[in-house]
């Protein structure tokens, strides 16, 4: 069982190393197979670990395995240890399972690219890093995984490095995540200072006795890291730009796994957040704000991947909302269902993009349901799951989150409840807008031109994973049916006990409202589509939404311009005159001094005699006086 966990962790790493060392000695397809198999082996290991854990008593379901002591300073010790409990085993399954499907899919998507091997090495590296993050047994190791997934994200966003936009997007993602990493690390520094340990159990045992300011600061630090990694407001502007990377990358990293790391952190460190309730509520509020803002912006985007990216941002907002209220089980549940349907949506979009030769602008698409029937079904299923239509996956998880807000009550609970419901409406609106624009209606000229290329909808390596995810998006939510059976929630509750549990009545009542709102969204989108106009009519609102509420412009003015001005200023006023000139000055100064000193060499006997006389004078004084 523990061996399964170790295999799960190390198999993708072995794959990445193998591909890197083999270099051009293996074919590109072989590199793809290595990566895919490594990830599926990891999935097998995760299954072994999962079933092994299930066979244990609930009290024993927290297994720690230490490989060796990584560093030890005085009383402070950090081990290379992995933690196998209900939460981490669930995450392992999601990451390796969905990851394996996506890596398999990329074999078809990236076929023909010159640098496929590099791609698969990076993908394996990413899977390893994400697994390290979720399996880490202490905060420091988690931070290592945290940083590594940031690195992998940077490498993969900027994969097509000949494109300037891709490179810029990669840098943007990395810098923003670096900010989050910094706050995370600062939080850890405080923990080490005040508790002397970074293991989960060590910290959680002591968190109750810490000063409330310290706990709040630690929680804020962790929240900063989570907000950056999960692209919540205010650190969200990198995610839409990250769509410059290949579509499978967007599916894996920026939908299913990496961006959910923040949610995982919030759940894993729940004891810390529960000791700092203000920060926990802040997380919920940020989640709510993000889900509304992202939903609004998604209404006006023209790039198919960007709509789905904003949708991701919005759905993670739901997860943050749940974690912030203490509904940890539902947060992880939505994480899982979201992984299914969002990866599905991205991969179907990838099939569309692939079929249309790289086109991503939805204004040029239309009527694809005739040319790509299988993709159409997949995309429709994904959309239904996303908008929370029963019985698809999203219905069970999202409504659980919304009803948790209702169950919390109070001013916070009610505000979040209303926000989440509005979000449900927005989700329905933008998702169906996208669906109608791309798939329904008459075939656009562009589609007609490309549809006769006759290579089917896509290779098997792309269609099979999509098919699997379609099935999962349909039935994946059925592990939680309130009032009937809730094994998933019970499973997660063993690690993170929820602060709030909605009643069955609250659940189904909320579902009714949410589904109604989603259907209204669908209806409005349909009407707007048939009438050939956009949902957002007023041009002023359109402009604000299209510029994404001017966040990019704000950050540019606040951070980029001053930094750039400072560097230019330093270059002209410090570097050139002081440092460069000073080097010249040293040279010419030495020459000048040398010239001056050389004037003492007159060559005249008489001056030397005078010098001698003076020297004798001084020497006599010294010798006699010192005597």
């Amino acid at each position, binding site marked *: 069982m523990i061996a399964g966990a170790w295999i799960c962790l190390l198999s993708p790493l072995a794959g990445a190393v193998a591909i890197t060392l083999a270099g051009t000695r293996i074919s590109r397809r072989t590199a793809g197979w290595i990566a895919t198999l490594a990830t599926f082996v990891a999935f097998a290991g995760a299954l072994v670990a999962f079933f092994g854990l299930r066979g244990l008593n609930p009290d024993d379901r927290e297994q720690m395995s230490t490989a060796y002591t990584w560093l030890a300073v005085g009383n402070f010790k950090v081990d290379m240890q992995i933690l196998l409990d209900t939460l981490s085993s669930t995450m392992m399954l999601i990451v390796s399972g969905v990851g394996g499907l996506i890596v398999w899919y990329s074999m078809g998507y990236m076929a023909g690219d010159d640098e496929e091997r590099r791609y698969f090495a990076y993908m394996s590296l990413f899977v390893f890093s994400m697994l390290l993050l979720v399996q880490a047994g202490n905060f420091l190791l988690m931070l290592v995984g945290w940083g590594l997934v940031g690195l992998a994200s940077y490498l993969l966003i900027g994969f097509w490095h000949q494109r300037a936009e891709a490179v810029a997007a990669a840098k943007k993602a990395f810098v923003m995540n670096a900010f989050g990493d910094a706050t995370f690390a600062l939080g850890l520094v405080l923990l080490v200072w005040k508790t002397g340990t970074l293991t989960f159990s060590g910290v959680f045992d002591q968190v109750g006795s810490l000063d409330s300011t310290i706990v709040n600061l630690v929680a804020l630090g962790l929240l900063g890291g989570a907000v950056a990694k999960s692209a919540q407001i205010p650190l969200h502007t990198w995610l839409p730009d990250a769509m410059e990377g290949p579509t499978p990358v967007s599916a894996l990293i920026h939908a299913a796994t990496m961006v959910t790391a923040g949610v995982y952190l919030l759940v894993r460190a729940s004891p810390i957040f529960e000791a700092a309730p203000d920060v926990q509520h802040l997380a919920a509020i940020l989640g709510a704000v993000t889900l509304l803002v992202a939903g609004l912006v998604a209404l006006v985007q023209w790039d198919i991947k960007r709509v789905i990216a904003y949708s991701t941002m919005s759905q993670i907002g739901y997860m943050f909302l749940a974690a912030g209220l203490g509904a940890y089980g539902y947060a992880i549940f939505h994480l899982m269902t979201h992984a299914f349907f969002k990866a599905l949506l991205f991969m179907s979009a990838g099939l569309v993009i692939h079929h249309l030769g790289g086109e991503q602008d939805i204004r040029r698409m239309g009527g694809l349901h005739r040319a790509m029937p299988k993709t159409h079904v997949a995309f429709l299923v994904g959309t239904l799951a996303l908008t929370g239509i029963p019985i698809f996956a999203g219905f069970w998880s999202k409504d659980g989150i919304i009803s948790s807000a209702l169950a919390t009550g109070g001013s916070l609970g009610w505000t979040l409840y209303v926000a989440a419901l509005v979000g449900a409406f927005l989700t329905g609106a933008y998702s169906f807008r996208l669906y109608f624009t791309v798939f329904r209606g008459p075939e656009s000229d562009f589609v007609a031109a490309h549809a006769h290329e006759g290579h089917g909808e896509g290779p098997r390596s792309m269609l099979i994973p999509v098919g699997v995810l379609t099935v999962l998006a349909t039935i994946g939510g059925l592990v939680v049916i309130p009032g009937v059976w809730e094994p998933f929630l019970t499973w997660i509750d063993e690690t993170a006990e929820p602060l709030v549990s909605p009643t069955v009545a609250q659940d189904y009542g909320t579902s009714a409202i949410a589904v109604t709102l989603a259907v209204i969204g669908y209806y409005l989108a349909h009407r707007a589509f048939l009438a050939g106009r956009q949902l957002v009519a007023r041009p002023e609102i359109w402009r604000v939404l299209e510029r994404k509420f001017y966040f990019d412009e704000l950050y540019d003015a606040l951070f980029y311009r001053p930094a750039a001005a400072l560097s230019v200023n330093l270059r002209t006023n410090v570097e050139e005159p002081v440092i460069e000139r000073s080097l010249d000055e040293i040279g010419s100064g030495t020459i000048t001094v040398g010239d001056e000193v050389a004037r003492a060499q007159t060559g005249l006997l*008489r001056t030397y005699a005078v010098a001698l006389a003076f020297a004798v004078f001084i020497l006599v004084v010294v010798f006699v006086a010192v005597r």
Partner: protein
Amino acid sequence: MAGPDVGWYLIVSAILFGIGALGVMLRRSPLVVLLSLEIMLNAANLILIAFSRQQGNLDGQIFALAVMAVAAAEVAIGLGLIVAMARRRLALDVDQADALRG
């Protein structure tokens, strides 16, 4: 016979030494420079002998004798140098021997 004390001889010797030093530093003809050098050596001799008398120890006079011998040797070589300079048609001017100038 009681004459002036050592102090008087000291003053005379010192003044003589200073005059000799001035001559070495200020004259341009190498011959006169050598002559001034002789004056300095003689001033040293004088004070050596004066102190020898005052201490009642003949070592000072021995020293002065040695100084005299060395001075003679040095003059011989110095004059040889000056004659060599003249033979090479160099001007007998100390200021013009500035090959060390740098």
